[in-house]
């Protein structure tokens, strides 16, 4: 979904920081903040070998669009690019990139953090962690 200074994608291939950066760059902006989420090799003392992301893609894009619109409203964000991986993701691979440009840098930080916080709270994407001795859906059980 690319519309109205907002670029949202859920992709099966490697994510590119440069692509997100190039999208949000704007001549009137003084500051761009990016968040890059990578796959950790450890979780709660266990070795993680890789991840698998399942997505409810149409709803995820809808929900991310709402979050982006909220940033424009709350933080006057200029442009946003949000790319999230789906499917198999290896250790050290990028799972998510969020790029935000703003006239004032403070609001770029606030918006970027808002997007990742909200994404983890409400966007229908599920992470299955594969360990050396099994796999499980993150957050699913108490």
């Amino acid at each position, binding site marked *: 979904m690319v519309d109205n200074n907002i670029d949202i994608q859920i992709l099966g291939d490697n994510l590119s920081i440069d692509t997100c950066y190039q999208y949000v760059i704007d001549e009137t902006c003084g500051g761009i903040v990016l968040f890059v*989420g990578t796959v950790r090799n450890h979780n709660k003392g266990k070795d993680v070998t890789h991840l698998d*992301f*399942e*997505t*409810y893609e*149409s*709803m*995820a894009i*809808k929900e991310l669009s709402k979050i982006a619109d909220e940033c424009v409203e709350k933080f006057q964000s200029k442009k946003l690019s949000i790319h*999230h991986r789906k499917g198999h993701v290896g250790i050290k691979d990028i*799972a*998510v990139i969020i790029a935000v440009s703003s006239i004032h840098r403070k609001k770029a930080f606030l918006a970027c953090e808002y997007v*990742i916080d909200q*994404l*983890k*709270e*409400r*966007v*229908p*994407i*599920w*992470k*299955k962690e594969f360990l050396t001795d099994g796999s499980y*859906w*993150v*957050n*699913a*059980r*108490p």
Partner: protein
Amino acid sequence: MMKIRCFGIAKDITSQAFITIDEQLPSNVEGLKLWLEKNYPQFKSLNKCMIAVNQEYADDNTPISTSDEIAIIPPVSGG
């Protein structure tokens, strides 16, 4: 026939990407949740699942019908 999409651990529990309810259709989200817990007791052991109706989070009072796109949303874990 009401069709329900299953994601993440919900798909593991039902063993299917879609389940269907063929009779005594629930009329709202609360009814659907009760139906799920009755037919798949394993849902009780999960963190709270949400229900999405037409790709929007829906509360217990939201009415549902066979023409809606309905999905079980287990606790999300993107990012």
